[in-house]
């Protein structure tokens, strides 16, 4: 049948074409494996850095980025995705790469300044325009009749920051009593009608589906949501206290040594700390470590009291206590609703 023969020709052609795609990689490349809403940031940053690198060394650098859920991205690196650098949502996911695949040192976080976190964010509230339910602080979220939208901490790295921020607030207002904090967080999650699997799903539920009174979100995502979905519909409420969300960066030692890209990878991550890198982070709604470099974008970040993951020990401790199977989060749903 002629049809079949055409198919074979097409398949053969496709195979040849695919071969040539992979054959054409002559110039130096760098792969940054990142998490979800950093696409715009790294799109611009990569361009700026590539120009900077070209000026500095004369070398043309082609930088690729991969985006996805933070843990999923870490898994891809563990399973063999050859990332030169990773820029993920939480340290726990990079710890996992060190633990499960030994691709980098366990004390990777000491390698770059500020716990290897060039930019930060925090957890804020997104409410409907005019704040009809008058939500001002964490305490308002546990009132009866308030519906809170937040993703499932077991499937979303960002949601773990939300959860810990609430827990930290409760600790602070209850003389550091774990039992009181547990009660507070349990009540809060009883007010959650939908547990989406990721931050973006929660935003859609809140904004497009019109469900819930308040959305817990990363500050940078809250800004993006307002940008995309309308300042006439939403506004940001900054609570009295929140957690300093630190999305860290790291070099994957085994990969850069194999590919001979250590020099480029180090320069790439260091450039995030440069005035130019800090300004770009601020432009894309991340809080720069050095606010003086933020320029005109500095004004958008409200001042508030921030505690850090160190108040929970570290990510290994927090993960084990709160989010692993049978941990505090699972307890909330075991008691029955």
């Amino acid at each position, binding site marked *: 049948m002629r049809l079949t023969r055409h198919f074979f020709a097409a398949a053969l052609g496709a195979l040849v074409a695919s071969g040539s795609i992979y054959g054409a990689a002559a110039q130096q490349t760098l792969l940054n494996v990142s998490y979800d809403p950093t696409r715009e940031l790294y799109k611009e940053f990569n361009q700026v850095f590539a120009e900077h690198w070209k000026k500095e060394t004369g070398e043309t650098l082609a930088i690729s980025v991969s985006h996805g859920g933070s*843990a999923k991205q*870490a898994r891809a690196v563990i399973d063999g995705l050859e990332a030169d650098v990773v820029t993920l949502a939480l340290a726990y996911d990079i710890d996992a790469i060190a633990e499960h695949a030994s691709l980098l040192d366990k004390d990777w976080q000491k390698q770059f300044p500020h716990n290897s976190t060039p930019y930060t964010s925090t957890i804020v509230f997104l409410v409907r325009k005019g704040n009809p339910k008058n939500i001002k602080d964490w305490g308002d979220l546990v009132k009866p009749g308030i519906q809170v939208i937040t993703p499932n901490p077991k499937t979303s790295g960002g949601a773990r920051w939300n959860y810990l921020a609430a827990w930290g607030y409760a600790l602070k207002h209850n003389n550091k009593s774990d039992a009181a904090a547990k009660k507070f967080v349990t009540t809060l999650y009883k007010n959650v009608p*939908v547990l989406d*699997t990721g931050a973006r799903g929660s935003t*859609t539920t809140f904004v*497009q*589906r019109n469900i819930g009174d308040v959305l817990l979100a990363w500050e940078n995502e809250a800004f993006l949501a307002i940008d995309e979905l309308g300042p006439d519909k939403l506004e940001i409420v900054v609570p009295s206290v929140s957690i300093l969300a630190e999305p860290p960066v790291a070099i994957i030692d085994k990969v850069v040594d194999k590919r001979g890209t250590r020099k480029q990878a180090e320069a790439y991550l260091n450039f995030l700390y440069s005035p130019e890198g800090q300004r770009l982070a601020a432009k894309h709604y991340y809080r720069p470590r050095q606010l003086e470099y933020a320029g005109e974008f500095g004004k958008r970040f409200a001042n508030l009291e921030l505690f850090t993951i160190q108040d929970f020990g570290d990510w290994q401790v927090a993960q084990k206590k709160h989010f692993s199977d049978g941990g505090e989060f699972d307890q909330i*749903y075991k008691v029955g*609703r």
Partner: protein
Amino acid sequence: MPGFGPAMGFTLAYMGAVILIPLAALVLRPWTLGAEGVWDVVSSPRVLASLRLSFGAALIAATVNVGLGLAVAWMLVRYDFPLKRIVDAMVDLPFALPTAVAGLALTALYAPNGWIGQFLAPLGIQIAFTPAGVVVALIFIGLPFVVRTVQPVLQDLNPELEEAAVTLGAGRAVTFRRVVLPALMPALLTGYALAFARAVGEYGSVIFIAGNMPMVSEIAPLLIVVQLEQYDYAAAAAIGMVMLLASFVLLLIINLLQRYSRRWDER
């Protein structure tokens, strides 16, 4: 007739490479936990609840699809109406749309403020973010299987059968039940099997509409993802293995039934 040997050899070899070896990896992986560990994972209340939901919702959705799919196929074969060809073409759409997009679109329709949901909300009916939402998504992805299996059989159905029944004094209802339905049975069963199979494991479209509340609207594939997020490949594979075995047994039963019903039909 010649050629059985090479054809069967190729079939088994290709199937081994594409289906059996990968699935063997899935079946081997959980046992690093030990038999007890595997049992602990798959017998936890949350996993059991999610398996109940996944299989229950898939069975309901497949049943709805058999009924409504038969109606759609009947309409496409027996009636003439404007734009019939376009309606016919539309049936395949659930295959082409990426599941995540389908999930978003369905949620937009069935959420309390959606085009359809807003009319149901005053009646106290909520679809999106409840187990009913899961069923809706599964109906969507399974529909083409039933329509496309029943349609051609209905088309090939010998009209003389129905004529004979009428000549013998049977009414339309009786003719349908005693003559048409038995002839369609094998096709309906096949469609049921495929729609069910596709629905059991579905993930992309369901997570947007399900609400994902533990013990209530959490599907089994979501728990696999939860295990993966904790870097627990073995536990994830354990849940996957249980789902695989359960659907294999169910499919085998339906396929045996289908063979049986065809033999009965030919007699």
